[in-house]
């Protein structure tokens, strides 16, 4: 198609000035962009208020949409379930039988555990979650992995609080608005969670890869003791996360650690709970 923009502006001074001013503002836009970018790099929470206000305003629409997410995702699962009903039933009955045995064993262990703890004078760390909220969106176009949650400062949410679902750790609160907040998912490239192996307490760090997995980096670099299927839970060091929240399961070994799949996939999670910061003093030292 031929251009419909005039090549020369003619003799109108007004038109010439308008055109020139438009270009000045356009170039200024690029300069402003660079300046703001540098300012954002130096402190990541610098424009928190603007972002918080923006997501507060769009919250009602997003919450309405989030209701449809779980129904549309479960619809396909329900249709699929019809085809697998028979084999599933058989398998479930077998599972139930083994689960009953395991339950009995666990009850025995639990009583023993309680008795031993009383001996040691340990107290149980039973904290009430601050609020339960909905994940209403995520930055699906950016390489940063943030999710938007439908609770903010009005509901008592503050920065640094861990967010989890019933399956495991989702991330922690990075920025708060009045009724929304931005959650840094554990899969983000700039998220590091101190973890330990569930069975023996081998310490490591879980670093996000931005593609749905985390990389497990061992603290002690010896022969790689990991194997596929190892489950990692939060260790509680660092002060943000309560200990023993499940994080990830190892899927692939690397020379200096492993690639692990996150246990609670944010895409399949609708409701999350926000916990208080585990140890505020230790956490503030890190920040």
């Amino acid at each position: 198609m031929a251009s419909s923009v005039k090549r020369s502006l003619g003799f109108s001074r007004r038109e010439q000035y308008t055109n020139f001013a438009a270009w000045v503002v356009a170039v200024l836009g690029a300069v402003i962009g660079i300046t703001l970018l540098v300012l954002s790099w130096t402190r990541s929470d610098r424009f928190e208020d603007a972002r918080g206000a923006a997501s507060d305003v769009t919250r009602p629409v997003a919450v309405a949409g989030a209701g449809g997410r779980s129904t549309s995702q479960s619809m396909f699962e329900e249709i699929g379930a019809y085809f697998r009903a028979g084999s599933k039933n058989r398998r479930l009955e077998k599972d139930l039988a083994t689960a009953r045995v395991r339950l009995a064993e666990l009850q025995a262990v639990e009583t023993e555990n309680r008795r031993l703890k009383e001996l040691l004078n340990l107290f149980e760390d039973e904290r009430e979650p601050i609020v339960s909220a909905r994940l209403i969106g995520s930055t699906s176009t950016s390489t940063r992995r943030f999710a938007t949650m439908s609770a903010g400062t009005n509901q008592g949410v503050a920065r640094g609080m861990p967010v989890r679902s019933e399956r495991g750790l989702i991330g922690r609160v990075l920025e708060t608005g009045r009724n929304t907040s931005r959650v840094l998912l554990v899969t983000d490239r700039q998220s590091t969670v101190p973890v330990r192996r569930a069975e023996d307490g081998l310490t490591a760090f879980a670093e996000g890869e931005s593609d749905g997995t985390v990389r497990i980096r061992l603290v002690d670099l010896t022969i790689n003791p990991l194997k596929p299927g190892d489950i990692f839970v939060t260790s509680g060091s660092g002060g943000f996360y309560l200990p023993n929240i499940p994080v990830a399961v190892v899927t692939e070994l690397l020379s200096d650690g492993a690639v692990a799949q996150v246990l609670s996939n944010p895409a399949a999670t609708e409701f999350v709970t926000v916990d208080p910061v585990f140890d505020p003093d230790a956490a503030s030292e890190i920040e």
Partner: protein
Amino acid sequence: MAIAVRSKVKKRRGVGRIGYAPSPLMVYGLPWASIMLASLTPMLPIITSAPLVPPLALMMLIAWRQLRPGLLPVWAGLPLGFWDDLFSGQPLGSGILLFSLTMIALEAVERQLPWRGFLQEWLFASLIVVVYLVLGAVFANPGDFGALTILGPQILLSLLPFPFVNRIVGILDRLRLVRLSRIR
């Protein structure tokens, strides 16, 4: 024959009504509104574990600029980029810079190559989108180039639907010029 012609005229009555003119709000506002709406994709109930959704706001901006040169001013990247930054998850300033550069680049293309076909438009749009995604990943994770390795699927998903975005902008453009307000 005459009947066929009349039915065609009847169908277009909404567009060509005599005594009515397009409303200025729609004529100048709809491009801005549609691009700003496209910036709200992070508010959609899609939660992905990797970047997958195409940068719709940028693609709409390119499509509007290519379909109706001169309708959006050269400086449109500044406010639209700022709006996009509020939701996209990128550090603030990334969108302002990249949207502004996009407008300047498209203006330069307009001057150098006044005659273009659709395939060429698609090619320019593809180039801009790839550069946008790569620079966006670098800006979001400064000093960490590993983020570039996960961009592949998103780049592919962004280049293919360009004709579709173009069509939507075409439909919006017709909607924009519907004669709504009565001439007095």
